[in-house]
């Protein structure tokens, strides 16, 4: 294709080296126990690596318009996680305080101390 922009080799080579370094870093950082931050840090490093692959190997640096597909996909994933975890995190919290405005005898019995196991 005459005149089509060709990405210079140096970007590929640089990205390749960065990816190798970050992979080693991934293993090293996993040896350090950061408590609750373990998972977020691992995902962050992986995201940076993925970012390099996307930006340079997949050419997004020069094709801003196609970024929307990546962001769209990521947004959908975040929504999926977010709402599923809102459900999961608040399971088993059936209100023990029963509001009875009319003080009638309800046929429903509240099970005291109910805690759902979730697994």
């Amino acid at each position: 294709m005459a005149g089509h922009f060709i990405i210079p080799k140096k970007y590929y080579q640089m990205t390749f080296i960065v990816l190798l370094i970050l992979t080693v870093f991934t293993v090293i950082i996993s040896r350090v126990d950061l408590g609750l931050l373990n998972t977020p840090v691992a995902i962050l490093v992986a995201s940076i690596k993925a970012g390099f692959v996307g930006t340079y190997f997949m050419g997004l640096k020069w094709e801003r318009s196609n970024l929307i597909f990546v962001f769209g996909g990521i947004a959908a994933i975040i929504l999926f996680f977010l709402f599923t975890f809102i459900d999961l995190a608040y399971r088993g919290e059936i209100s023990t305080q029963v509001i009875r405005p009319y003080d009638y005898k309800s046929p429903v019995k509240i099970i005291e101390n109910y805690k759902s196991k979730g697994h």
Partner: protein
Amino acid sequence: MKNYINEKSGILSWLFTNDHKRIGIMYLFTIFAAFAVGGFAALILRFELLSPDQILLTAKQYNQSFTLHGAIMVFLFIIPSIPATLGNIILPLQLGANDVAFPKLNLASFHIYILGAIFCIASIILGAVDTGWTFYTPYSTTTNTAVLSMVTGVFILGFSSILTGVNFIATIHYLRAPGMTWFRMPLFVWSLYATSIIQVLATPVLAITLVLLMLEKVWGIGIFDPAIGGDPVLFQHFFWFYSHPAVYIMILPAMGVINEIVTTFCRKNIFGYHAIAYSSIAIAIISFLVWGHHMFTSTSEVAATVFSFLTFLVAIPSGIKVFNWIATMYKGSIDFSTPFLYFIGFMVLFVIGGFTGIFLGTLAIDVHLHDTYFVVAHFHYVMFGGTLYAFLAGLHYWWPKMFGKMYSELQAKIAYWLIFIGFNLTFFIQFIMGSKGMPRRYYTYIEEFQIYHQISTVGSWLIGLGFIVMLYYLVASLRSGEKAPNNPWGGLTLEWTLPSPPAYHAFENTPTVTQGPYEYGIEKNG
């Protein structure tokens, strides 16, 4: 006169065509076949419900009937209906293009659809599924009916949908005629674009859900069955993450068709072009935020509250569109042909469906109405009264363009009224039944509900009759209908500049677009 239909003959020239118009026609026949099968299942199950005792189906067969009805109607009929038929044929023509971006992929989508349909239909013979079209676990992973066959079929159908979405996105981005900026595109195109976004982002989640379901059934992986450590509500999250946006895959193209109908038959420019275009995209985005409203009785209260609030948001763009359509009609010059009748029907029925959706989105009300006939009535009003009506409107509108023949207006109107009366008889009564507590998917019921069921069943017969009349006059139109002119309705979008039916290579010279799609001139004063 050579056109895309008579240009090449022989069944192989159709089955292996790359022409978007031929592919659309083939889809048209297959989805109507699917509609017939799904409709037949509905007639049978409604017949059984005439009495609380057994008439001709056992309880298990009843479960199989409503599962078949649901799965076929959703996956084989409604989801592909407008995009794969009207979209495939009309979208490139409205853009001034000679085909979609990837015609071979388009053909592949059709073949994949056929393959998926075979697996779904095969399940009927292998042990018809009785889980309901939602395949909830753990019943679906432990029942011995042919869940695997049906689920494989649906998985395959998902790819047909995804590839159509991919095709349309590329087509709309790159194959517009010169001068057709984004805001000069017909709104039908906007709606297909928004639909394609949902198809691409939501359908793969259905795919993975079904894969996990199959693995659970075959190998007992332990993701959804509590007996082996799984979580059944997780299945519901996974399933509805797709299936809620799926209903917008159903309604967005329908709303797109409506834009075309209302402008042409009121001979007036659309009111609020930008608002409608943006609201299509807004619906696509918001549709991903609300899936939990199908799970109000099974998620945590916190999640349910969040989802209830978000559900109200999704009605706003739809409401914007409805108001814009009404404003478009105001002081228009109205032509009451069949497509416009279906438009009016859509406005009435979709609004009823939409309002009842708000009732159901209200958490405190939904806990009482969940899994009752109220829900059944709601979704039939939006899917049948909404999507199917818009599909029929589009079918009758573009029929002359697609086939070069006119149909009988009188017979079309007879069918219309049979369907309209039948539909309301069948489903309005279900709102009442549901609010009185009649649960859905129940084989039997208490005495007091019998009269409602009987009225509903009679309504279903009228619907069936209406469609038989429709089949009759459409077939008659193909065989001996009056030859259609290029532009029988006076539409201004690009497809009406072509002969009816168009040639294989529709646009000899690529048109140049200099104005919007609905420039009907100055509105008449009074």
